[in-house]
């Protein structure tokens, strides 16, 4: 039949047997097997079904280049689309083939292949037009995709990313990479050597070699020991998947079933990424049993797996000789087929010529040659030459150049800080690879006997080949598809790729890009270099999303800021919610009753709220006043020390960016209390303009927000509560009127007391060092008890400020709102000096009377208007929006709903009745002034 286990295998441990399930079949293997090697050893031929035509497919390769053996693996976690050639075989796994129904061996959709002639590349662009794509799409979507997501199953585990630096990064621990790393490390450089396989060695793992008189494996062992002794970091199971800006290399370092992201910044990078073996073009070259010769050698030497008994080895390169000889030595019947002509290879029978077609369906049965000769075989190994792996080189900005002798692209000029050695640079022979490695690090190459070999022959698919010749196995693209694309004018290599999907599968065309390109060149009458290559994009191999996401999950995604008094709030029964980037108390007790009762009580007696997130940015210096006059809409230089002013900050477009309260501490000292959600933005805004316009010594800015806790006491009884603190500050309205502030003393430190109100009632904002917040909180609660004080959450505060008509920037304003729209026009006429945004306020557009303006709305009825409802203009043929409700609540104090809105020309429409629409329902409302509770402002001083 096909594969079997035989003695040998340097990387398996026969003392540790394992078993796993593959499509219901129990597979035996050993530790050190990959899923692929265990399947081959168990005689499994068909491991998957091709994406489009559902053709049976077997294992092609032995590493990341594998196009066919994609499986879903379930153990402790579920991981779809794993590459069987990379997945370690572990005990107890459940492995499922993909894209076959019910499984790959018995796929009922295999019948599709009978209609293949009607389903060439791009066929779906030419049909499904009638009656509608919508009818066909669900069926086609259901057939697309390879593996399956299992909702509810754990996937890859989260790993913390790491940042690392080194002097020299060497990618690839094959002979060239090991030599370069070793030479550099022993010269005293800080070296990191990464290798995506679980073992170092590259080609030395499977091919015989003589280096410095030792055999390759011994040389490797000694070299690795010297590397360790020299302090080099050698990371196995670590794949360099991308080169990013300024030389940063993204590494996926294997951890368990997944990987950790390592962002490595090397001073210099050497790529020793090797070369990938190519296949050969002939009819039905996708059959199970057609494999890379090198892969067969790997399975034999590493895992003791003989891939077949009657084996044809088709050569266009001497690289196929060693696999052929090794398999023959292991007991297989091997025949060589040399595309370069038979030249007496020694003991093995050799035919001259090329394979024309393979027979067999679920497994190779035989081959026929161009000459007409045929052979009965169960395995066809292909040694079509090697393609240097230039992915990372190209990502770093390198431009590959065509090497006609090799029939491959090789690196051109080195990008800054990066060079390529070994097979990746086109030095496919060991001696040349080691020489290039030594040269890159100013070292000496070890002695390697000269190995004369015949030149390789580049065998590309030709136009007009008979039968179906595969170019891209995973996306099911044949030579005829490439010809069709060219015929239809998709002659650029990018168009070819996108039209046929060649190279766009999960293997990123590692075994197909060049063949497709060569055929396209031939068909369009251009040279290969003129046809170009497609852009290489990271990642080199698929990387788990979880690896890139790192540990940011759950609360670590945009983490919320927490209050110093959070414990107190929780103890008081608060429900905490996100507000402006902070976790803040929304209400205390059970909603919705708690919200209404807090808001009512606040107006009747007194309420206590935690306003600590309020920004406190200190600005001082001889030019502080001039600076703040420039930054603010309002004039602030006329503010007296000890006083506060409500201010707007605009963008240069004149848009209202933030509102706040400015306190003047002294001639040259101000404190800006900006809204809690804008603190970082305000600080950056101030600092940027300061650095642009004012010298460092004249204005200094310091954000002290986290240093201060601020507690607000508001209501008719608020003065009595604050007085009970006995802070030493005189609290009579003569000494401390509304919009003034002063300093007292509490808990051994300064207490700033500012009469600023966000509720419309008499209100005191008390600011103290954050580590004394709890003492102040407890003292205020105690002082408030005899006054029937309530705690005030964010929701109740919303009711109070909506009643009062106080806007919140970003809720009652949007990114087009100008200060005049909010009713604040005085600075524009009274202020002489220039300020940020002033020029924009002079545009005609800013002066239009029908701009959206800030108003209140009184609902007709007891139900609050829905926030987001639009006010309609019904004067024209179709309804248009005249504005929208920005805030809306039920007021327990007024016993009716209150709302705020932006309304076109609203300031001139007070008293007008309007129609409001929400989700298709209409209701009535009347336009009123925003302050619906105390337009005279008496409550600010009441109590």
């Amino acid at each position, binding site marked *: 039949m096909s594969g079997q286990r035989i003695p040998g295998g340097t990387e398996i441990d026969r003392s540790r047997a394992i078993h796993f399930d593959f499509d219901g079949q129990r597979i035996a293997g050993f530790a050190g097997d990959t899923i692929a090697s265990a399947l081959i050893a168990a005689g499994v031929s068909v491991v998957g079904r091709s994406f489009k035509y559902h053709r049976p497919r077997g294992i092609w390769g032995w590493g990341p280049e594998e196009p066919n053996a994609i499986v879903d693996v379930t153990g402790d976690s579920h991981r779809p689309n794993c590459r069987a050639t990379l997945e370690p075989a572990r005990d107890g796994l459940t492995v499922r083939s993909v894209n076959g129904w019910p499984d790959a061996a018995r796929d009922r959709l295999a019948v599709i292949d009978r209609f293949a002639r009607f389903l060439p590349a791009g066929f779906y662009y030419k049909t499904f037009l009638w009656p509608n794509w919508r009818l066909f799409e669900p069926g086609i979507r259901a057939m697309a995709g390879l593996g399956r997501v299992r909702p509810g199953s754990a996937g890859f585990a989260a790993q913390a990313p790491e940042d690392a630096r080194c002097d020299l990064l060497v990618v690839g621990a094959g002979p060239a990479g090991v030599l370069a790393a070793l030479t550099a490390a022993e010269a005293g450089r800080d070296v990191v050597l990464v290798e995506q396989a679980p073992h170092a060695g590259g080609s030395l793992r499977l091919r015989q070699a003589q280096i410095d008189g030792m055999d390759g494996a011994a040389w490797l062992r000694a070299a690795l020991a010297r590397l360790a002794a020299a302090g080099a970091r050698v990371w196995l199971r670590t794949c360099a998947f991308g080169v*990013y*800006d*300024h030389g*940063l290399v993204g590494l996926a370092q294997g951890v368990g079933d997944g990987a950790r992201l390592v*962002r490595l*910044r090397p001073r210099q990078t050497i790529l020793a990424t090797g070369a990938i073996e190519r296949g050969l073009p002939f009819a039905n070259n996708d059959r199970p049993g057609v494999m890379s010769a090198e892969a067969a050698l790997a399975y034999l030497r590493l895992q003791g797996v003989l891939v077949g008994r009657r084996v044809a080895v088709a050569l266009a390169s001497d690289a196929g000789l060693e696999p052929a000889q090794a398999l023959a030595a292991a007991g297989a019947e091997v025949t060589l087929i040399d595309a370069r002509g038979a030249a007496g290879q020694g003991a093995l029978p050799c035919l001259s010529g090329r394979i024309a077609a393979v027979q067999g369906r679920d497994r190779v049965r035989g081959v026929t040659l161009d000459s007409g000769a045929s052979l009965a075989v169960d395995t066809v190994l292909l040694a079509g030459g090697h393609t240097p792996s230039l992915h990372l080189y190209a990502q770093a*900005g390198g431009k590959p150049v065509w090497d006609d002798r090799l029939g491959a692209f090789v690196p051109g000029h080195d990008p800054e800080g990066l060079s390529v050695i070994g097979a990746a640079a086109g030095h496919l022979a060991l001696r040349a690879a080691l020489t290039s490695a030594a040269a890159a690090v100013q070292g000496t190459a070890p002695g390697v006997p000269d190995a004369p070999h015949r030149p390789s022959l580049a065998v590309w698919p030709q136009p007009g080949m008979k039968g179906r010749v595969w170019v891209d196995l995973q996306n099911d693209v044949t030579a005829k598809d490439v010809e069709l694309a060219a015929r239809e004018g998709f002659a650029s290599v990018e168009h070819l790729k996108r039209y046929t999907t060649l190279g766009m599968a999960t293997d990123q065309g590692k075994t197909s890009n060049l063949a497709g390109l060569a055929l396209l060149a031939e068909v369009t009458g251009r040279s290969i270099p003129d046809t170009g290559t497609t852009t290489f994009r990271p990642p080199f191999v698929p990387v788990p999303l979880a690896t890139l996401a790192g540990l940011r999950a759950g609360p670590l995604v945009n983490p919320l800021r927490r209050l110093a008094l959070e414990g107190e709030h929780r103890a008081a029964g608060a429900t905490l919610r996100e507000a402006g980037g902070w976790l803040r108390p929304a209400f205390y007790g059970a909603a919705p009753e708690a919200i209404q009762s807090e808001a009512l009580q606040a107006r009747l007696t007194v309420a206590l709220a935690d306003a600590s997130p309020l920004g406190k940015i200190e600005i001082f210096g001889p030019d502080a006043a001039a600076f703040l006059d420039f930054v603010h809409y309002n004039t602030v230089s006329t503010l007296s020390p000890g006083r506060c002013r409500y201010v707007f900050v605009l963008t*240069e*477009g004149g848009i209202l960016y933030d509102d706040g309260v400015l306190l003047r501490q002294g001639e040259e000292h101000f404190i800006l209390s900006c809204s809690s959600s804008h603190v970082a933005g305000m600080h*950056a805004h101030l*600092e*940027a303009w300061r*650095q*642009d316009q004012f010298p460092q010594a004249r204005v200094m800015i310091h954000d002290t927000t986290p240093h201060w806790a601020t507690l607000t006491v508001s209501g008719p009884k608020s003065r009595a509560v604050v007085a009970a603190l006995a802070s030493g500050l005189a609290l009579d309205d003569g000494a401390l009127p509304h919009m003034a502030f002063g300093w007292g003393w509490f808990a051994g430190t300064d207490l700033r007391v500012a009469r600023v109100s966000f509720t419309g009632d008499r209100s005191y904002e008390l600011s103290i060092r954050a580590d004394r917040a709890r003492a102040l909180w407890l003292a205020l609660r105690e002082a408030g008890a005899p006054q029937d004080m309530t705690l005030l959450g964010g929701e109740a505060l919303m009711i109070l400020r909506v009643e009062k008509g106080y806007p919140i920037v970003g809720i009652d304003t949007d990114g087009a709102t100008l200060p005049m729209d909010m009713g604040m026009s005085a600075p524009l006429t009274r202020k002489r000096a*220039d300020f940020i945004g*002033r*020029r*924009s306020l*002079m*545009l005609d557009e800013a002066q239009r009377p029908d701009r959206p303006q800030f108003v209140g709305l009184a609902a007709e009825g007891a139900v609050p208007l829905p926030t987001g409802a639009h006010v309609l203009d019904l004067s024209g043929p179709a309804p248009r929006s005249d504005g929208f409700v920005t805030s809306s609540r039920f007021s327990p104090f007024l016993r009716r709903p209150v709302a705020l809105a932006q309304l076109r020309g609203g300031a001139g429409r007070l008293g007008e009745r309007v129609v409001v629409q929400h989700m298709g329902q209409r209701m009535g409302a009347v336009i009123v002034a925003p302050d619906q509770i105390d337009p005279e402002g008496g409550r600010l001083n009441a109590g």
Partner: protein
Amino acid sequence: MQSFPCPFCGPRPETEFRHDGEAGKLRPALSCTDSEWSLYLRARTAARGPSREIWTHLPCMETFVLQRDTLSHRVGEVAP
């Protein structure tokens, strides 16, 4: 991930920086025309290749001018 040179702190990862616009824009006087104001406020060179830009290093708030290539991402001179 790019690395930018803060004149104060040295080379730091790009996530610590904020781009603050094209360097060399002069704020016109209030007497400018609507057109001149619009050009100052809105017009960009958006150079494809070498460009002079204003950057701020957020941890230290140092604002500086950086020469940078927007195509190759090469970083050039820094002026604090």
